[in-house]
């Protein structure tokens, strides 16, 4: 399998595209030693992320084995994950 995306940690719920990918394309990656394939629901620019599992509304998004923020909408596996559906939980002037 020629991988076109990378998953850093077993706990991650997103992968990062190593090349620009198109909607409906198969994203191929390794999670540890296991091969994994995900059908993309959006175009994913180079270096951008997509979900490899469903993430519920306000669910934590995991990359590097740590939370990188939470979902602001329910996210399906294969969807583009970025500022339109994830928010930071740090340095929030709008939170007490």
């Amino acid at each position, binding site marked *: 399998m020629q*991988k076109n995306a*990378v998953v*850093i940690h077993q706990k991650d719920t997103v992968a*990062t595209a*190593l090349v620009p990918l198109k909607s409906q394309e198969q994203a191929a990656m390794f999670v540890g030693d296991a091969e994994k394939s995900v059908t993309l629901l959006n175009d994913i*620019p*180079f*270096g*951008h*992320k997509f979900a490899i599992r469903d993430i519920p509304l306000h669910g934590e998004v995991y*990359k*590097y084995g*740590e*939370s*990188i*923020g939470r979902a602001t909408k329910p996210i399906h596996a294969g969807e583009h*994950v*970025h*500022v339109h559906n*994830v*928010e*930071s*939980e*740090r*340095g*929030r*002037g*709008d939170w007490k």
Partner: protein
Amino acid sequence: MSTNSFKGFPRPDGSIGIRNHVLILPTSVCATKVAQDIARQVMGAISLNNSFGCCQLGADARLTEKTLINAAGNPNIGAVVVVGLGCEGAEPLRIAESIKAFGKPVSCVVIQEEGGTLACQAKGTSIARTYAQELSQQVPVETPISRLVLAMECGGSDTTSGLAANPACGAASDMLISLGGTSILSETTEFIGAEHVLARRAVTPEVGKQLIDLVRSCESRAKSLGEDIRGGQPTPGNIAGGLTTIEEKSLGCIHKAGESPLHGVLAYADRPTQPGLWVMDSPGQDIESMSGMVAGGAQVIIFTTGRGSPTGNAISPVIKITANPQTAQKMRDHMDIDASPIMRGEASIQAIGAEIFDEIVRVANGKQTKAETLGHDEFSIYKIAPTF
């Protein structure tokens, strides 16, 4: 070429430089033009950008002065000509006296004393010329690589930074530390979301707590302005490059620190007290961050970039590393190391880390970095309060 030594310039305080500059140091913004004009006329002289040095209060004034003094104390500087206006808060004679503690030749010229910029420039140029000629006769000596203090920076990050360039940087840092050297990581804002991961590697619980407290107070400062860090961090370029939140950016940034244990947390412009990995409090703004680490004694800087930053530093050479293949090609006039083979699976992180380490040794032995050859001499002092 031995990878465990470099030809360095010993200084009276025992530190060893990899360059041999005469520093023309303006103590305030009003003295900057004269300092620049002197530096332009003397081969081997450099000057610093200083936009401050007057009408500052308390800790902010002290921080500017400490940065100026410690920058002058950097081992890459062989001699100093301090230039002042004469009435500024950062009094030139006092600053010059403090720099003398490093043992290197220091002189001071004051615009109001000399009767104007032209006379001051003439006197300063004559002194700088004497220093430059003396330094030109200094023969560098074989020095173990353990004497290097490495500053690590990232700027214009995208997701290739966290995936490839920063881990390779971390591998190089670990190599230096295993040989007895010192590495400094900064940009406090870019620990937010990852501080607990780095704190786990602290050599004592106290050091771990210092790091957590540092990050918390940075976050509170942003909130107390009524502002959201999301307004400035990540930057538009980070976001276009795929980084979504400060947490994601920070988790990528800390990979520059490799696996080495964390020895301590430094205030801005302070010097590490022993070898190993250190964290320095600084903003995420690259020039201010690098200037702080150079004041902390770093002779060389490695700088990872995804979007492509050309910046250098006035005192210490900056080695640019990118793992973004478009940037490696488009900005090849600025990129010293292409780490994009990691992204294509053509090279391991360790292999590129070794390439970075070899480049650090070459630069320590005199090789100019691209930023150096192109004359990038950015320098800027971190400000912690408004001017009054």
